[in-house]
């Protein structure tokens, strides 16, 4: 019968994570990617603390350094981390999908080489997918991996690459097939970022430092042992990886926490605030719950090993739209105060302003809403994928 409780162990885990975050981080912590490098360093230390407690890779199998936790415990971790401004910093990418992709498609050597440092929070990964001419149309990417003797040489440009400047490793998508081979000619490589021929250039952005970078690959050498999956099988690995990613960020969790935090900040004037604005606040709480339930359905279906392409895209459309709705509702209630930065005395140390900026990117990062709508409508209309 229907049951919407996550269980005793998940509830205990939630409390434990909250205590750890509260003890470790100051109240003004807004994530790793601020102008203060100390924030990033703090998240690296916290990741190692989580790893020591077996909480960094809670749902990973024990053989790969995990705790064999339930998918609901993993869900609690995602919610608590995102709600508290992702205190794992740049680690979440390795945990959410690079690690699981290596488990699913990697060789024994790759698993032994890469999974332990992800499980202990030592390595930061970045994802070399987007290119200047290949955004939503990712299958048209043109970074080339050419066979030279017993190795590959990779040449091309990647862009919008988050954490590229700090990452030790990159999952790099390159074309090993013919120029017009589309999704059938893409391969993935696991490349160390300090390899000769790689240049990273940061891009100034409204999200703050580290989020957007350009990466140039100039005849970068890669071995066969650095291929993830078979040559030409990169697209299916990416597709699986991105399905994980669509529910990997529990945006609704930060939304819910901030909506209540806003109520607390405005408690002395709440009754005098515009009724329409307060009604919108109530309506936003409903949208947050809906987004959470859509994510939970994906988790439940993944637990039963069901295909979740449609459901994951529906959940992602809802959670990213919810993020932007909540940002707007909070701005309306705060009025001009929504513009204040942390140093100017912004409410909640700037958490609302920070959320507004991040929310604007929610419908673009890790696959645009338009692509999610294509996936959903294809299922609804019973169509084949284009390309």
């Amino acid at each position: 019968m229907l049951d919407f409780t996550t269980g005793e162990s998940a509830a205990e885990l939630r409390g434990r994570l909250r205590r750890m975050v509260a003890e470790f981080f100051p109240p003004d912590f807004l994530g790793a990617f601020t102008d203060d490098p100390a924030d990033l360093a703090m998240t690296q230390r916290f990741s190692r603390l989580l790893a020591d407690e077996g909480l960094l890779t809670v749902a990973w199998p024990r053989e790969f350094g995990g705790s064999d936790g339930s998918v609901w415990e993993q869900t609690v971790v995602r919610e608590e981390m995102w709600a508290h401004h992702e205190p794992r910093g740049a680690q979440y990418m390795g945990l959410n999908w690079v690690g699981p992709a290596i488990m699913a498609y990697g060789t024994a050597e790759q698993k032994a080489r890469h999974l332990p440092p992800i499980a202990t929070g030592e390595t930061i990964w970045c994802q070399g997918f987007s290119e200047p001419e290949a955004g939503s149309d990712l299958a048209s990417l043109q970074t080339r991996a050419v066979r030279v003797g017993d190795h590959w040489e990779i040449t091309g440009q990647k862009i919008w690459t988050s954490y590229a400047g700090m990452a030790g490793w990159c999952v790099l998508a390159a074309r090993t097939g013919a120029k017009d081979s589309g999704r059938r000619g893409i391969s993935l490589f696991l490349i160390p970022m300090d390899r000769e021929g790689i240049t990273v250039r940061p891009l100034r952005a409204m999200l703050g430092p580290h989020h957007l970078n350009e990466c140039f690959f100039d005849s970068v050498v890669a071995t066969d042992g650095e291929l993830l999956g078979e040559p030409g099988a990169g697209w299916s690995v990416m597709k699986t990886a991105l399905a994980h990613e669509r529910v990997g960020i529990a945006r609704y969790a930060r939304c819910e926490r901030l909506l209540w935090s806003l109520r607390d900040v405005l408690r002395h004037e709440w009754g005098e605030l515009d009724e329409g604005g307060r009604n919108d606040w109530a309506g936003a709480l409903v949208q947050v719950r809906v987004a959470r339930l859509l994510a939970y359905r994906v988790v439940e279906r993944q637990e039963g090993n069901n295909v979740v392409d449609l459901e994951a895209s529906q959940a992602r459309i809802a959670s990213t739209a919810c993020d932007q709705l909540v940002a707007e509702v909070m701005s309306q209630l705060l009025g001009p105060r929504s513009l204040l930065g942390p140093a100017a005395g912004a409410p909640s140390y700037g958490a609302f302003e920070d959320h507004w900026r991040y929310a604007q990117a929610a419908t673009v990062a890790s696959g645009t809403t338009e692509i999610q709508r294509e996936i959903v409508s294809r299922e609804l209309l019973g169509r084949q994928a284009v390309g």
Partner: protein
Amino acid sequence: MRIELPEAALDFGRVADGALRDLGGVDLARSAESDLGAAARARECLASIGLYDIDPRGGLDDAVAAAELCRVGGSHAVPFPLAGVLLRTSAETPFSLVDARHPIIDHARAAETWTAATIEGDLFDAEPVAAVESKVAPFAMTVRLRPVAGGAASVLDRRLGLVLGAYHLLGIGQRALKVAIEHTKVRKQFGQPLSDFQVIRHSLADLSVGLEGLDLLCRFSLWSTFTDTSPSLVDALSVRLEAQRVVKHTLRTAQQFHGASGFADEYDISVLVRHAQPGLRLPTDRGATIALLRTAIEEFGFAGPFSPAEERTAR
């Protein structure tokens, strides 16, 4: 966590769907506007599949069956007060939520007297007076209310009234999306099906997201009807609000995709849009619902992992 409906409930839904389809589906609703016998045929059909054996107040098992029946009934716009009869207070007395200032009940003709309650809990006997004579409420009637001395509607009855009403709207919305998909696949303009236009495809995707979310919120609110021990209506009001938001938008968009044919009653979407209006607007339309919800949240909170109550207990 268990989000999927039990197989028994899904089976029951399939049986109900088959029975109502055999009766004509939306055609029955269409004919009911001029044929008083249609409502009786609907009642007979629903009775044959066990309508009168379900006690939604008895617990979650029966409530899930009642909810599935309301959803399926909504998907055929069945011309019968399903939720009202499921929540009847005696064999011949259905239950309805009303706006006491402008009391109107859909399908009021189904009984000589009703038990009526406001969302706030005021309790009345209600007697149908006259049809509202409107194309957007062909079966609705004004009713005369007589307060029940010392009576108050239970929290459970009001929650179930709101939640089963949301299930009815969910069914209507699901049908509207289905007919929109079918229509845009076959209707050609500029030499191609409407569904080849990206703007149409993306709108359909958004409608499906709304309806899937509403479906899950319906399940959550039904579950919480029996697990939330406070006197709060927040979960029931929240699902009503979401049903109003999603289904209004779905109906409007589906009708738009039909072009002029969307207003012709030979197309199901025209019948669905009209027959859905009482459920969408009674007893409160969206503006009134959200004000009630906000007041209720301010008093009782709104459960979630980061609500103040949860923040206190999880530390």
